[in-house]
């Protein structure tokens, strides 16, 4: 019994040291638009969330800490999150720094063939041809079900609170 106690104590101590010193890693993937679409549609999760992000947009920055909390606190992991950012490929380091600073571990996707103009139109229509891209802005998102049907498409008229309440429903 005494040994069991010592072993469990050592295990707990080692675990907490490891947890404290765990090396943080950002999760950025470079991808072409077509590949991103495949990635989303091939996911077998109950919900697939494509979130449109801009590192320098106050709305994106404002909502992200809440999204981060939902992501990290989710227990069922019944969803896949795809944060599609408008950063250019050559600006990957800037995004790395941003994610490192805030400790964001979410999967971010930089589009390799990012269009010079019409990022929204091309990106959104590529993954959701029924979505109204003109209604969407940075920090908006689309939720697909496992059959890749659109469940929700948010728009820029909605408040941050509305966005979070929708995310809460799907990020369990």
């Amino acid at each position, binding site marked *: 019994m005494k040994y069991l106690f010592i072993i469990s104590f050592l295990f707990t101590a080692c675990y907490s040291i490891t947890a404290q*010193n765990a*090396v943080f890693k950002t999760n950025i993937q470079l991808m072409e638009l077509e590949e991103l679409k495949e990635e989303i549609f091939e996911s077998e999760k109950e919900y697939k969330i494509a979130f449109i992000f801009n590192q320098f947009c106050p709305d994106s920055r404002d909502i992200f800490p809440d999204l981060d909390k939902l992501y990290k606190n989710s227990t069922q992991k019944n969803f896949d999150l795809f944060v599609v950012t408008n950063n250019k490929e050559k600006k990957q380091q800037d995004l790395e720094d*941003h994610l*490192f*600073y*805030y*400790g964001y571990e979410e999967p971010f996707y930089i589009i390799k063939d990012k269009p010079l103009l019409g990022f929204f139109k091309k990106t959104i229509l590529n993954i959701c041809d029924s979505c109204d891209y003109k209604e969407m802005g940075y920090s908006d998102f689309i939720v697909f079900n496992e059959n890749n049907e659109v469940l929700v498409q948010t728009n820029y008229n909605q408040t941050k609170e509305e966005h979070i309440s929708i995310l809460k429903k799907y990020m369990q």
Partner: protein
Amino acid sequence: MKKIILLFYLIALPIFAQKEYTYNFKNSDSLDAYIEKYELPFQEEDIYITKDFENSFRPYSESKFLRSPRIYVFNEEGQFLESITNITSEKKLANFKKLRKRPEKNEPSLDFWTSKIVHYKTGNDYDDPKNYDYTFVVNWDLIESEQTAQLVEIWSEWYNVLLRQKAKGENIQIILLNIDLQERWELSPDMRRFVLENVNRSWGE
């Protein structure tokens, strides 16, 4: 326009943060209570306070280094490199390549700081013979104002990102320097009154 307002706000925050607050003497219990109340992620071993009034706090207050929220960065030779604010923190703390390389001339070295601080609980002098590539002195205080939530967020972000850098293998030292007035100085009643009057007149207005 939005960006101008945001920039103004970021610059003004440290100034306005000092408004409408009455400074008083603090001790390790009040520091612990504040850390607990606002869930600051601070680790006890990194927290320091000024050693005494005459030789520690006063030279600080007469320098430009008694500001909060602010980080002062020193290189491996203990030379002062630069101060970091909430405007520059994301760029500088996430990527040390962006820290200033050349030391600032005519600024006090790390010894000026470390000779004037003690651990907030034990009262032991700062004594760390190890050499670090960078030392970050993070100034913080127990302010209670409308800006407290934002200040707490800033200090938490700063400390957390520095811990991430440490975990990644960066050879750095973090000193969380609480810049409040300290009970530990054991000033006479008259001196306490004098200090409080002066501090509240010059900082609180």
